[in-house]
């Protein structure tokens, strides 16, 4: 870890898995090492380092880790309102890591590959033929 302590990491892991729960074939954030991803991405920005270290410490100070799951969710819902700035960053970084992970991208029905270099096959579409009707309406541009 570049920035987060062991306790910070444990707390963040639990929060991330509540933000995006495991479901069916979709992995949980911790299944794809989200904590390492978040640690890496915040470590380049002093503002984010402060926000995460102080925010996680604050949550840890409220015995978050020993709460039951339902209590943790209730806690986070309240925390979202009272600490909007930090919570928004928690969500953004969790989503960032999750929805750019090849395993997740494959699980949601895509190839799991980035857009390039292969691109995609795109059907040309059938409805160009409907343009005949548009043409038949005649000129709609205004001639000054």
């Amino acid at each position, binding site marked *: 870890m570049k920035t987060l302590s062991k306790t910070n990491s444990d707390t963040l892991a639990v929060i991330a898995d*509540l*933000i*995006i*729960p495991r*479901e*069916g074939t*979709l992995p949980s954030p911790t299944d794809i090492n989200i904590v390492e991803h978040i640690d890496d*991405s915040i470590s380049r920005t002093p503002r984010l380092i402060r926000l995460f270290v102080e925010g996680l410490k604050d949550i840890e100070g409220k015995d978050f880790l020993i709460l039951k799951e339902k209590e943790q*969710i209730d806690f986070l819902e309240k925390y979202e309102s009272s600490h909007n700035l930090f919570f928004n960053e928690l*969500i*953004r970084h*969790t*989503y*960032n890591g*999750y*929805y*750019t*992970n*090849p395993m*997740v*991208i494959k699980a*949601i*029905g*895509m190839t799991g590959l*980035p*857009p*390039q*270099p*292969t*691109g*995609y*096959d*795109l*059907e*040309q*579409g*059938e*409805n*160009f033929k*409907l*343009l005949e*009707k*548009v*043409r038949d*309406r*005649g*000129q*709609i*541009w*205004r*001639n*000054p």
Partner: protein
Amino acid sequence: MGIENKKVDVLVIGAGASGAAFSWKLAKSGASVMCLEQGDWINPLTDYSTSNSDWEIHRQTDFNPNPNFRSLNVDYPINDTESPIAPLMYNAVGGSTIHWSAHFPRLKPSDFRVKTLDDVADDWPISYFELEPYFDLNDKMMGVAGLIGDPAYPPKTQRQTPPVGLGKLGDKITHGFDKLGWHWWPSDSAINTLKYDGRPGCNNCGPCDLGCSIKAKSSTDVTYWPKAIKLGARLITNARVREITVDSYGKAKSAIYYDSEGNIREQYASMIVLAANGIGTPRILLNSTSTKFPEGLANSSGLVGKNLMFHPYSIVTGIFDEDLEGHKGPTPLNIMSSEFYETEHSRDFVRGYAYQVVRSSAPLATALSGHVPWGKKHHAAFKKRFNRTITFAVIGEDLPETHNKVTLDPNLSDSYGIPSPKVEYRLSDNSRKMLDHGVGTATQVMMAAGATEVTHDPLKREAGWHLMGTTKMGTDTKTSVVNKYGQSHDVDNLFVIDGSIFVTAGAVNPTSTIQALSLHIADYVISKSK
């Protein structure tokens, strides 16, 4: 003043859409042309993120279209706290064509005659038909995908490549237009759909806004610039212009700039041409004060920086109950509807708007759309939207108002201490009514196409792609800054060729018209130098 460079015939400031076209045309005529560009070259093969799994995150960081968020060394900050629309731009060879979506519609004939037709703003001192040969030349140089026969335009010459494919998503939405009997057309795109001019056809990867690593998208670093350089044009990158100086006769003499190592240099030229966009150009002019021009260069009218126009956008999104494969194909589907483009006096606003159809958002953008909550409902909400949305960007004509303006911020500057611009903008009542009408009709199309739910954003903030009007063209020296050839009324060897010279905005993307104007101005300059 610093290191003095050898004098050139023509000095262009800015290597984006207009600067590239103009430099090519002048270099072809045999003039010695130098271009100073604030940014650097981008290597499409190595510098774009779309071959990496984290490609979507780059929209938040180094490829954020907003320079205030991107904060690269080549950017300058903009105070946009008094504007509901954030100005967007990119600083590099190619300018904002690096991150554009390559929409390439032309302004329409009526856009040049709004005073005569609708008694608003001013007529342009030039017509669509005078620009037509330059539109055609520019289309050949850039490479345009499209389809002729659109009844919303005068006839055009054959497009260079066929239109961008509709795909499943395009078929779905065009049924909606068809049911209502409303206009739609595959709009011009500066994207090769087949191999053209040594560049390959698009492989439908999707995110044009993150740069095209295969060069199918026509940014000017891969279209005009290689040709201009071959003809002898010199392009200096990482050259940040501080000001333009004048001689004792009040003619433009030189540009003072910081080079890549921070040295101050002075480049002399017989003629100076500004192509730094609708915010960058007035910024340089307002920073160029002298005893002859205490209020800024070329500013005897007091209009430099005034009349700033964006295209205000409302965003309308329909959700469909089937997988539309919305990630396949260029994000801008490039279907455009001109059904409500022209003035209709029964409406409560004047002029009009268009819709552009946009494909579904990619996974991360879907998750961050504001409609996908965290917690137990997360996956269901994501699934409901991913690949199942179609979006309309309702683009309205924004009329010029002098209180919408670019000035210099007294407290903000770039890393070299050059004062930064401040943008003040208010959405007019006419524009608000126009966009509200657009949201209503766009919703009708979505429902006709089978949407199960439609949401909208009444005014998108991160949408100031089009920067226009801040050194307006005109015939009256009191009410305009430049003439129909982009030539300053005050300084006859100073020209402006970017979107700053637009008299009005039309309701389509401006780049095709900006480039046609720059080629038209180039022809004038060449004819005068003979």
